[in-house]
């Protein structure tokens, strides 16, 4: 694509969502444990909770992006999912994401992986796919596109990769008339084996550790992709440059090659707060740059920066290759009005970029499962996979039933109506996920049933509540329906009866090698501001 395609509708970014886990390991804890510094330029790394993975984080980011853009999941016409660390090396992760988000099953899905460049490749491919389709990514029958990038890289415990390993996800909603247009895409590849790789069947990313060779591979690929954009970087004058960031130093080494000030790279880089988030890194940087404001509403300390109006996003993958995208605010009728200002963000952003629970090094190893065992002998409660599959609409999207006879809600929607006893059946009634605690306990460490022993080893005692979920109209609905749920991030331990909670996507448990995804709840009071 190049600038002279401008006669055709160009997809742009209509909304951005970002999710970084709440748990983090400060560099000081790493230093204390190892007697050496952690990853350069990294102050803390985000740690996925025992029941989080790239799919749950992708769902969290996806929901935030849809919310920010004001787009219904059911209107999405194209979905791309990029990660180097899917829950399974082989299996359709994107299809599960479609279900978790509530995107229509007939929507084309594309999954990208294989290197940390995958996110940028997914964005470029989605722009290309939706631009060329008859429907486009706009108001046509295709509908908006959703690009979700999530990563949670691992390294051998003693390695530099492990020292910097973070976790996070970001998502973009693309529409034809969106305020932040994708102006150009540039790509570059040149073999540089050994720079960042993971062998078949391995969970641990590694590199050969030849420092200058790796730096050169990075700057050459990033510089090459930006050059291939075919635009003058000085003219684009990006407010932020969002680069793949294995650590907090490498991105700045590309400043000279790109001809940009290090401050612009800082504006698009979050690695110091999240650690290495692999393919998601540049997208979290983009979310941060677009969310910037002088009095930051997201609760971060104000950095005095205005929201970016132009961004250079570059995904780099070891091996080595890079994909660059130039993004800039589209001149629209509104923007050309005298009343429009450039000081407010053109793109709505809903981002949780900072953790609020610090772990010790041992706790981080437990959460990641590095030092814990699996399911104990004796087996767990057996719910067959086909049985579980039948409840996926309830597990993923809280689809309750409305009795066709009396209108009462039932969850799960099966069997006789709890109110009138009728077997007439149910109409789907999707619950918004907010609710009130009706009864609660906490299962003490060591007390969990076998299928939750590993979770308990990783994350300790867990509260379990019976929640009266609000009816389809939310708090205004005078109907509610009860369901049991584990409670995450409950600072008080067992939540109090009457506490408000909200559903979040989580791994429930794993059996026969199959991860079962469902919902847990987080106390509304304990949600990140």
């Amino acid at each position, binding site marked *: 694509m190049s600038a002279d395609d401008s006669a055709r509708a160009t997809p742009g970014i209509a909304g951005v969502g970002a999710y970084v886990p709440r748990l983090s390991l400060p560099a000081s804890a790493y230093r204390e444990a190892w007697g050496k510094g952690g990853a350069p330029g990294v102050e803390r790394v985000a740690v996925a909770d025992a029941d989080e993975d790239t799919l749950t984080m992708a769902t969290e980011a996806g929901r935030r992006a849809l919310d920010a853009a004001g787009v219904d999941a059911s209107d999405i016409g194209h979905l791309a999912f990029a990660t180097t660390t899917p829950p399974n090396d082989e299996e359709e992760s994107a299809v599960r994401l479609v279900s978790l988000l509530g995107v229509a099953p007939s929507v084309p899905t594309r999954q990208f992986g294989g290197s940390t460049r995958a996110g940028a490749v997914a964005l470029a491919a989605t722009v290309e796919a939706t631009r060329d389709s008859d429907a486009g990514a706009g108001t046509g029958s295709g509908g908006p596109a959703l690009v979700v990038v999530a990563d949670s890289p691992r390294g051998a415990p003693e390695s530099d990769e492990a020292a910097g390993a973070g976790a996070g996800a970001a998502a973009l909603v693309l529409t034809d008339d969106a305020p932040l247009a994708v102006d150009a895409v540039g790509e570059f590849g040149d073999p540089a084996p050994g720079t960042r790789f993971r062998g078949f069947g391995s969970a641990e990313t590694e590199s050969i550790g030849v420092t200058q060779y790796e730096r050169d591979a990075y700057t050459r690929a990033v510089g090459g992709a930006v050059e291939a954009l075919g635009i003058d970087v000085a003219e684009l004058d990006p407010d932020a440059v969002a680069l793949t960031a294995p650590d907090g130093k490498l991105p700045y080494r590309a400043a000279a090659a790109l001809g940009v000030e290090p401050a612009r790279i800082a504006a698009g880089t979050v690695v110091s707060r999240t650690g290495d988030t692999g393919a998601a890194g540049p997208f979290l940087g983009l979310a941060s740059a677009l969310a910037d404001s002088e009095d930051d509403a997201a609760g971060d300390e104000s950095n005095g920066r205005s929201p970016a109006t132009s961004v250079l996003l570059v995904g780099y993958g070891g091996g080595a290759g890079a994909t660059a995208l130039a993004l800039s605010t589209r001149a629209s009728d509104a923007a050309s009005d005298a009343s429009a200002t450039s000081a407010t963000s053109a793109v709505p952003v809903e981002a949780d970029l900072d953790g609020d629970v610090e772990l010790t090094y041992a706790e981080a190893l437990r959460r990641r499962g590095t030092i814990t065992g699996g399911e104990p002998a004796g087996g767990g409660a057996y719910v067959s996979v086909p049985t579980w599959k039948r409840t996926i609409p309830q597990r993923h999207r809280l689809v309750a039933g409305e009795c066709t006879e009396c209108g009462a809600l039932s969850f*799960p929607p099966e069997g006789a109506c709890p109110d009138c006893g009728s077997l007439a059946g149910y109409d789907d009634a999707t619950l918004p996920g907010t609710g009130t605690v009706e009864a609660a*306990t906490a299962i003490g460490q060591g007390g969990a049933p076998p299928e*939750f022993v590993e979770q308990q080893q990783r994350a300790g005692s867990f509260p379990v509540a*019976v929640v009266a979920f609000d009816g389809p109209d939310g708090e205004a609905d005078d109907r509610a329906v009860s369901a049991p749920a584990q409670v995450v991030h409950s600072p008080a331990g067992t939540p109090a009866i009457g506490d408000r909670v909200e559903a979040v996507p989580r791994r429930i448990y794993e059996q026969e090698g199959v991860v079962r995804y469902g919902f847990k709840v987080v106390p509304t009071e304990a949600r990140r501001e």
Partner: protein
Amino acid sequence: MRDAYIVGAGQSKYGAFPDESYRSLFATAFEEALGSAGGVEAADIDEAVVGSLGVGGRQLGLSGPAVTEHVGLHGVPCSRIENACAASGYAVRQAVQAVKSGMADVALAGGYEVMTDMSGDVAKYWLGVSGETEWERLTGTTFAGVYAQMASAYLDAYDASPDHFSKVAVKNHANGAKNPKAHLGFECSLDDARSAPVVADPLNLYHCCPTSDGAAAVLVASEDVASACDDAVRVAGVGAASERVGLFQRDSYTAVESSERAAAAAYEMAGLGPDDVDFAEVHDCFAIAELLAYEDLGFCERGHAPELVDSGATELGGDLPVNPSGGLKSKGHPIGATGAGQVVEAFKQLGGRAGDRQVSGANVGLTHNVGGSGGAAVVHVLEGGAL
């Protein structure tokens, strides 16, 4: 329908017995039951009903015939009832039905369970099998967890504190210390009960019953047979009811509707009410369950169980002793044996043979057996000295 009578009842000790099998425990209970029933012989038994959850999976299929053939009841039709912890309470009810209907003149009801010969992880698996599996269990709840949720709702709804749970434990241990067949037959102080480690907030270890091995057996007979026996206790009333298995599916978390319905039916059949009851064996798998039972069985108004505990009325020597045997908490809880075991205690009490824990002037006794967190409940009202 004709009347049915308990004419013999016996049980093994409850506890942890690595040298015993489920068959040998059942044989011990059967022999004691037969020995207590002067006038009835094994050959008189027309029908057998046996309760067991099958913890450990040792003989899930045909476990009924497996125990009755073992004790020499060759050829006697036997069926096994599975209703979680209410299995043998329901077995007694089935035997009563068989006699009342006229299909049997003498029916054997019993139950067994072996729970202590497996690792803690395996035991925890089996302890969770009676919760609602697809939703409740898969939030990581245990059996204790579900009762703890009920306790949380109760503490929120009424003027109650965890101290009331501890007082129930102290009372039941005081009774169980007088029962030579109790699993945990020792006294505990209120401080012990208060300061035990938390199992599932707000329930601590002393608010939870143990897992036990044991068996119990009861002989139910027609009036003709009973009139020739040494001791006969009339089954004045029996009631049973089901409830939605998952707590989250219920209308109330602070009442067990199945217990309420079962009690109402049993009282109605007996033509008696809670005021007529001299003592009760109730299903105190967790201390909160005993408080709920007081209310479900009509011993007090809703929300007044803590007052009843504080008053001392349910202690041995009080107006309405509850769990003179020690209850599930101290006597023990071998799941499949528990309901029949309650009837064993009532038979002893009504016959004046309960030793140090004898309730004076016991004429009407009630047994209350609950499956899971309330998915099944069965209540018997038993009357002594009727023949």
